[in-house]
């Protein structure tokens, strides 16, 4: 099976590579480009740890072939900080609200939440939970992940994050 030459824009940089058609995007990112922030969790399209942004869509990179992404624009967790290197609103939210425990699901959670907030900058709690329903956290720390996204949304909208009264 002939290898295929692919080019794509990953985190703003033009990259290229020679891949077998069966190479999964997550393996191309991790093993060829050495961008190991994207995690492999279940490998069965369930857990969302491998989520990346592909042409403005959140996708599970374990279920996309690298050849399908030929010509695409991709953003991974490595590009989620502010351009000056400081923490983005989402990263700050995960830090301040204790949105991670073991941290394994976090790259996928943040990349997914990034797209969610682009599409809906002011989601309510139900919309956040529905929006991240393709990402599993096996520490089951969902409460703080939701708060982290609420924190980020408030910051992006120029507001102070206020928790609802208990």
């Amino acid at each position, binding site marked *: 099976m002939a290898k295929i030459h692919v080019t794509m824009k990953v985190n703003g940089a033009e990259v290229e590579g020679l891949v*077998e058609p069966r190479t999964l995007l997550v393996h191309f990112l991790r093993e060829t480009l050495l961008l190991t922030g994207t995690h492999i969790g279940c*490998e069965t*399209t369930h857990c969302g740890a491998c989520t990346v942004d592909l042409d403005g869509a959140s996708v*599970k990179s374990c279920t996309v072939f690298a*050849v399908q992404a030929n010509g695409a624009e991709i953003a991974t967790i490595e590009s989620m900080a502010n351009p000056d290197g400081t923490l983005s609103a989402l990263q700050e939210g995960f830090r301040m609200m204790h949105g991670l425990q073991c941290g394994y699901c976090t790259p996928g959670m943040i990349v997914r939440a990034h797209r969610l907030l682009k599409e809906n900058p002011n989601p309510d709690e139900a919309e956040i939970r529905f929006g991240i329903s393709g990402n599993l956290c096996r520490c089951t720390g969902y409460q703080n992940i939701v708060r982290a996204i609420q924190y980020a949304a408030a910051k992006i909208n120029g507001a102070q994050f206020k928790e609802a009264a208990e």
Partner: protein
Amino acid sequence: MIPGPFNYHRPATVAEAAKLLSSLGDEARLLAGGHSLIPMMKLRLATPEHLVDLQGIDALRGVRREGDRIVIGAMTTQHALLASAEIAKALPILHETARQIADPQVRYRGTVGGNVANGDPGNDLPALMMVLGATYRLEGPAGARDVVAAEFYQGAYFTALEPGEILTSVSVPVPAVGHGHAYEKLKRKIGDYATAAAAVVLTLANGKVASCSIGLTNLAETPLLAEDAARAVIGTELDEATLNKAAAAARAIMSPAADARGPIEYRKHVGGVMVMRALQRAAACAS
């Protein structure tokens, strides 16, 4: 979890794709969103020698109104359906059902064409398309033809598609203004296929059911139209006795598999419950 080797093709037109499919023969498979096929390939349950990726064919994407029908390109994703104002307005049951398919990431990739053409009894759109009276446009070496959804499904993963044919669009007649609709899906968790699901579209006249169509998902090898159940509710106000009668008529045609979602008796039981809930919710939103 590495798929077997294959050759990759990305045609730019339907004609080119159909030609590839015909010349490559049985060892070629179409790749749409890939969220049924790629997991199967990773498990080596599918080992095609060629994948013909449809993503480069722009003509297969989009939702458009054609008179009293909505035509949906086969490569339109479920995410795009949810973003479509036309769908939300004219086919609210399709919007509602698309929300219940898999999870957000899968909906960005999963397509209408793949969902209806794959022939997987667990897919949600086939029963709905039967209820809505949709037709599928199939294009192949012998030209194009239209097949109604109700005649498309022949068995699990067996459909009316002939070798070399591609399902290119789905055409749905817009239901009457004021129609009631509901898709009730019982599932174990987000992302799962239905344990049992029922789609209902109905109209009311003077508080009584004037017309009704009921579809069933994952309760047999193919999606089902529950015609006796639908007949049982015509002319009624959906009182409890009628609902029970409709559920019993629907259960009579169910033949679900026993699997991790439950034994046969349980799945038939909850299948009937889904029918009753869908009927009640559809009637409540009809005017």
